[in-house]
């Protein structure tokens, strides 16, 4: 079973040289720490950064340089700054090759819910609806089940949707799955996790074909 860092590490294997990538808040942000050496990947932050760098050295924080998570950051050489409309032009115009974000629920048809729980305080969708509506390559990073042990991979989402039939791949603490026309295709198991464990934790239709390899981290 993976922890959050393990999920981020596994997702980092999906990166390809030359890609522009938008990472959501939470587990997705950690992916930036595991970019393979010798691979050039640029991170976009939707508040207006391309080429987002590391956190600044202590004492060098600048309130005018933050990321979409409102954290102080730096800009790498070769980076650029732009306004919000241009930022979402990049996103909506499909100039970003990979979007990684968290989710509360994913349905077997690729629907995603990650912004609203009825009856609870609603914080808003931020840029999530734009990202999921436009990206051709969306990976969800999340725990396979919620805090009450219930599956987050469902037949249908019960929560208000963020986007429709858009998720391509899911990396959880238990497995890597691809969203196909037929349902969740199981690609890999987390170390020490059995196919049965994954089946038990998956409410939506799980497709198991042949031997399912263990992740290679």
């Amino acid at each position: 079973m993976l922890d959050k860092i393990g999920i981020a590490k596994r997702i980092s294997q999906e990166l390809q040289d030359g890609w522009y990538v938008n990472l959501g808040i939470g587990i997705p942000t950690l992916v930036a720490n595991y970019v393979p050496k010798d691979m050039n990947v640029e991170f976009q932050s939707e508040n207006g950064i391309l080429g987002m760098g590391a956190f600044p050295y202590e004492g060098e924080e600048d309130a005018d340089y933050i990321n979409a998570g409102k954290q102080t950051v730096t800009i790498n050489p070769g980076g650029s700054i732009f306004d919000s409309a241009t930022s979402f032009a990049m996103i909506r115009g499909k100039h970003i090759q990979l979007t990684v974000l968290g989710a509360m629920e994913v349905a077997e048809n690729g629907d995603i819910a990650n912004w609203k729980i009825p009856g609870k305080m609603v914080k808003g969708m931020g840029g999530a609806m734009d990202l999921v509506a436009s990206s051709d390559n969306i990976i969800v990073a999340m725990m396979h089940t919620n805090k009450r042990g219930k599956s987050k991979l469902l037949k249908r989402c019960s929560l208000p949707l963020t986007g429709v039939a858009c998720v391509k791949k899911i990396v959880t603490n238990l497995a890597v799955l691809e969203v196909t026309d037929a349902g969740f295709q199981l690609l890999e198991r987390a170390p020490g996790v059995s196919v049965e464990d994954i089946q038990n934790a998956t409410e939506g239709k799980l497709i198991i074909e042949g031997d399912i390899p263990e992740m290679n981290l």
Partner: protein
Amino acid sequence: MNKIVASAAEAINGIKDDMTIMLGGFGLCGIPENCIQALVQAEIKNLTCISNNAGVDDFGLGLLLQKRQIKKMISSYVGENDEFERQMLSGELEVDLIPQGSLASRCQAGGAGVPAFYTPAGYGTEVAEGKEVRYFDGKPHILESALTADFAIIKGWKGDRFGNIMYKGTARNFNPVMAMAGKITIAEVEEIVEPGELDPNFVHTPGIFIQRIFQGSSFEKRIEQRTVTPKS
């Protein structure tokens, strides 16, 4: 052209109860601190505020929320604010949440004279309720309308008396698009410079979009999430 006014108080002259205002900024970054303070002091009520976020309890738009000056918020993300939550859950505050890209594009459209455009963002969600759906290349899109405001209030880094503005870093965010979308746009800057000091090639917001400009004072520029790399 001389669009310089003396102070935030003078800059907000004409903003009245029940008006719609746009405010630049992302989180607490690039927000017009001086004008927000002036709005608090002027006790203007029932405002509809278009702003990506709603500040925190004791800074940014949170200051207007504390005084119950806001009737309605149009935003994409409104966490980090207890008073906001209380007013929203009690029904005192109307909230219209829209996707961040749609918010930016709708302001830009408003400033550019485009009354409406199609976007895939929000299709199949609550955001699409009541909106026209149309397919382009087999993919569903919804029709989104332009946003404008009686006043837009933006925060720049440097500006001149023609209203030309340069922004610094990610404090740019929504400021350039909202600058275009105000019937009257007020720019609050850290420094007013002489005309010609801003290279025309690198002006971010051309002066035509700005009606009033002033040099703000005592910018706090609060950091929400101070994250650092330890030196070693």
